[in-house]
């Protein structure tokens, strides 16, 4: 596998359940900027655990080993906030007690922008997703589809090299789902951000660049 400097690599990944001692070996993966990788598997198989492990969260009931390169840099031993990985969880993606503006501002703190620049940036980004009017609303005042868009926007505005999406569309109704999915993938691709999407639904992964199936457990 030839990796360029900007590639994201996952190598020798292994997930071991502490109670049963079962092991899951995941294939090596390489995701170029703007590419998306889909991981399909039934509910409860451990996909979410894997994502959380990639993010860097320590998990009580399982142990993850493997090499993780993000944008050409090994991040396996870094704390979450220094890995350059963003995540979009299936529920509660926004802080409910902060307005859309504040939610998005969270993502900008490392860029050292002035307050005015920040406001301009937020307004511009909202404009781009057609939600300029929502800037001072609370998440509770938005529709599900709008929340999903703001959630992704916030994740992306933190400028990660890799975004993890955990069943990102499951809270949406069927019609909205296809719409948001296509929008999400296009949005990530357009910004050159690599992504890993896990889902139990083949529909969600119909348009990804690479597809994987969740491997079987081994002893």
């Amino acid at each position, binding site marked *: 596998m030839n990796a360029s400097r900007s590639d994201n690599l996952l190598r020798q990944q292994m997930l071991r359940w502490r109670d049963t001692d079962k092991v899951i070996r995941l294939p090596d993966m390489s995701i170029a900027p703007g590419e998306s990788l889909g991981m399909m598997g039934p509910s409860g198989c451990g996909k979410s655990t894997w994502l959380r492990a990639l*993010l860097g969260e320590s998990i009580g009931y399982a142990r993850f080993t493997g090499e993780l390169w993000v944008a050409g840099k090994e991040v396996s031993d870094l704390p979450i906030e220094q890995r350059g990985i963003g995540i979009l*969880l299936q529920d509660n993606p926004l802080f409910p007690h902060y307005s859309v503006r*504040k939610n998005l501002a969270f993502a*900008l*703190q490392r860029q050292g922008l002035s307050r005015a620049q920040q406001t301009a940036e937020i307004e511009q980004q909202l404009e781009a997703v057609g939600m300029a009017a929502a800037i001072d609303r609370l998440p509770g005042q938005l529709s599900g589809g709008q929340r999903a868009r703001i959630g992704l926007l916030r994740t992306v505005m933190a400028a990660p090299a890799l975004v993890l999406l955990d069943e990102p569309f499951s809270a949406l109704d069927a019609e909205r789902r296809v719409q948001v999915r296509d929008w999400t993938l296009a949005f990530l691709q357009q910004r050159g951000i690599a992504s890993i999407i896990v889902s139990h639904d083949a529909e969600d992964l119909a348009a990804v660049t690479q597809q994987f199936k969740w491997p079987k457990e081994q002893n």
Partner: protein
Amino acid sequence: MIKRISWNIVLVALLALLALPWWFVLQGLSLQLPTPGAELWNYPGIGTALANSLLVGLLSTLLAAACASLIIACEAVSGRPGKNDVGTIFTAPHLAFAIAFLWLFTPFGWFDRLFPFAAGLVEQQSLVTLVIILVLKETPFLVVLGRQQLMQLPYQQWLLQGQALGTDRTRSWWLVVFPAWLRAMRLILFAVAIYSVAVVDLAQIAGPLNPPLLAPLLVGWQLQFDPLSQLLAQQATWLLIALGGVMVSWVVIQEWGLVRLLKLRIGRPPSRALIKALSGFSLYFSSATRLLFILISALTLAALLALSLGYGWFYPDLLPLEWQLKSWLDNADLILQLSLNTLGLGLLTAVIATASIIWLREWQRLNQRELPDLWLLLALFVPQLSLVIAWLGSDWSALLRSNHLSVLVAHSWFSFAYGYLVYAPTERNTTQSHLLTGRSLGYGYWRSWWHFKRPLMHSGIGYCFMVTFLVSVAQYVPTLLLGAGRLPTLTTELVAVSSGGEWRLPAVYATLLWFIAFVALMLVQLTRSKQNLARES
């Protein structure tokens, strides 16, 4: 239709239980306001009394809130929630805790005898002493209830989100979780703030006495019956109510200012130095204070037990002349009877208050209507003795002929406010969707509540039950005056025997009260850990 009617019947009954005492208060409370020319302002030292009360209120509320915030922050960030560490102080009866604390740490006290050259002891009867005792007592209250409020927030997820956006856990805590936690704590902080200006017994033994603080001054006037004292008492009642209002505003301002300050930081580049200092400080501070709390509570408890057993223990002796179980054994019959009264009344009160609170929250959910919290917490504002004296002078006793019933109604009424401020924020942070799902499956409202919502609310209900129980256990004024001595409890006995010049017998009752409250807390924490297990599986 029938269901509609039964909801309404309960609503009317409950509102009557909550509102009728107010009707009686209005009957008996005189409208002597402390207007600028009022006699109250001519009382010598009233300015100092008022300023000192305010200072005690502001300082102790601010410090206790700050200590509790740092402890909670450290626990949440490190992902290690504390367990039974500060519970011992939380459950200590106020008066007993203060007595033992003063006995240990004042000049000529036990530590002074042990280390004659030790510096930094606290003076008897001073503003600083009172603030220290209040902070020591209120911080654990805030920590215990704060942990419970935190559990209702998806704070782990928020911390993770924050981290995934490039913010470390400490910063994520302060910018994201803390404002939400502080909001959930608002009602509880109201109670603490009002208590710190309305407290009488602690102020009488640990606070300044020349002049006293406003609350003990008021009680002094209320128990003198010449026309001038009665007039001063009526005017001071309103002044103290106003002071309660000031304290509530202070809590709101404190929260608003802090959250505003934090919001300013959102989107700003993190200051490494500040984060490092803050996380380091909160780590050291929190471990140090926790250790201090554990140490102080262990020492005061030991001191109290020792005081109840020690005979002939005078300055400058480090140990008493004799150890005897006599005080316990001689009073065994009485102790048993008082304990039964206390437990019976406390449990009954807790059942009534908790059921009312749960019901009223559900009514608000069902009707999509939020009753303003302040209406329900109004009972906290009026000084208790003023309320009870007003009741005595009203038709209260004509309506409630039995002393026992009278006491039970008063206990339930006072407990309601405290229980509500614990339960309501928890309930608000809990989703109603499971209950709706249950109803869509064909369950009736309360069956659905029982099967689908109650399990989510275990800790909220448990804490509400415990707090209402403890409030009932701690009542002196209503139990004695409305019960007319027919229902003596451990607390009425403790307060009566504490009015003397010795600590031995008070120590016996105080130790028992401490024990009861501690068991109550342990039982509630048991339900909490059960719920955690359920959540993880």
